[in-house]
């Protein structure tokens, strides 16, 4: 690994350690929810990272359609996978938080439901990548990536409207709850740490995909020179 990358990884590990310590010990205990609320420091940053990953996927997909660059496709693949991972974290931490606090595992509120739909869309994206035949995989996946992302704001708006019609408990204290400055502080540290982790994971996956692409290209060179199969 290049020294700069190694330095970044170490930095991120340290940062993660620090922010976790902050989240678990330094942040003040929440009034009504108690210690369970600390999961918020994992829940929300994960959602943020997932969102950014999917945005990257959207841009990479468009780039692939326009330029047919295999690097763009590799980035799309990597960001989708990492995005799904973080999205899964959101979906798991959500119920864990909700159960002790509100007494229910799940609620169809706007944010959690949108996350679920997002998760479904990108899992279907990953499945398409696996099942598409040969050379069109990249193009088909790029198309689906674009559709998926365009859908997200529509999904969010629909569910919000649905919820104003049929209200139900909202997790995380509603849309506009403020944050105590001390908590905000810890939250931002965690946000930074998670973002760095996200960058590292995506970058590694991206490198892996590019290596795979290079391997394919090498096979292709051999096939051209040698026997054709």
């Amino acid at each position: 690994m290049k020294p700069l990358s190694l330095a970044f990884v170490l930095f991120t590990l340290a940062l993660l350690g620090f922010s976790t310590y902050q989240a678990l010990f330094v942040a003040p205990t929440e009034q009504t929810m108690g210690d369970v609320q600390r999961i918020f420091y994992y829940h929300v940053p994960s959602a943020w990272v997932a969102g950014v990953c999917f945005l990257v996927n959207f841009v990479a997909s468009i780039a692939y359609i326009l330029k047919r660059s295999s690097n763009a496709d590799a980035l799309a693949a990597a960001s989708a996978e990492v995005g799904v991972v973080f999205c899964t974290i959101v979906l798991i931490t959500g119920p864990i938080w909700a159960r002790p606090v509100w007494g229910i595992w799940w609620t169809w509120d706007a944010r959690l439901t949108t996350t679920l739909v997002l998760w479904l869309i990108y899992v279907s994206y990953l499945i398409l990548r696996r099942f598409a035949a040969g050379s069109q995989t990249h193009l088909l996946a790029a198309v689906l990536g674009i559709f998926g992302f365009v859908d997200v704001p529509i999904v969010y708006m629909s569910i919000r409207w649905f919820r104003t019609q049929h209200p139900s408990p909202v997790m995380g204290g509603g849309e506009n709850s403020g944050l105590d400055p001390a908590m905000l502080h810890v939250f931002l540290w965690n946000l930074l740490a998670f973002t760095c982790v996200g960058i590292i994971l995506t970058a590694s996956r991206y490198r892996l995909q590019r290596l795979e692409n290079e391997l394919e290209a090498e096979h292709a060179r051999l096939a051209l020179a040698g026997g054709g199969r």
Partner: protein
Amino acid sequence: MVKFFGRFAALRGVSASFAPGKLYVIVGDNGAGKSTLLRVIAGLIELSQGSVTLLGAPTAREVAHRIGYMGHAPLLYDELDGMENLRYFAGLYGLHNDSVCREGMRRVGLDPDLERRVGQYSQGMRQRLSLARAVLHDPELILLDEPFSNVDVHSARDMAAILGGVRDQGKTIFVVTHQTALMEQVADEFIHMSAGKIESRRPVKPLRVAANTAGVDR
């Protein structure tokens, strides 16, 4: 030109140029890349590397109305009859003239008033209708993939003569076939392909037979 299907290199570096107004016959073993080459020229396949220039244009799409293609499969709708098929495809080329379709069917020896669905045609009839569809819009460049498969000897000879006549009118024709003997009389050049490459090209002196000797009343 290079074309990969997954890990299989169907075309491994084909580089060639072809003159207009000639009848080229492409031969070779199965898997040599003959059909792939034809489809690349037709614009149905995107190359992994390389490019094709035809009729002065960088892509086949730009000159689509001047290209005719007959594939390995019939490229016809089984549920429609002969004229309905031709009428539909003629419409895709902007031709809304019934007589063109009727004439096209007659030229390949089929009855335009036959209301039988193509699904119930014999193989030979289907091949002939597919050929009619390919040349309906009077293209300058004609690409035929195994036009003689499952066609009886008489019809095949007729078709070969028709192709010669069409070439004489100044069209360029590429034919992929295993039946080299049939084409000896009319071909301008034989192109031998193997394992995704062009192995050799053999010019031939064709006998210029008069265009209308083929009887088409079958």
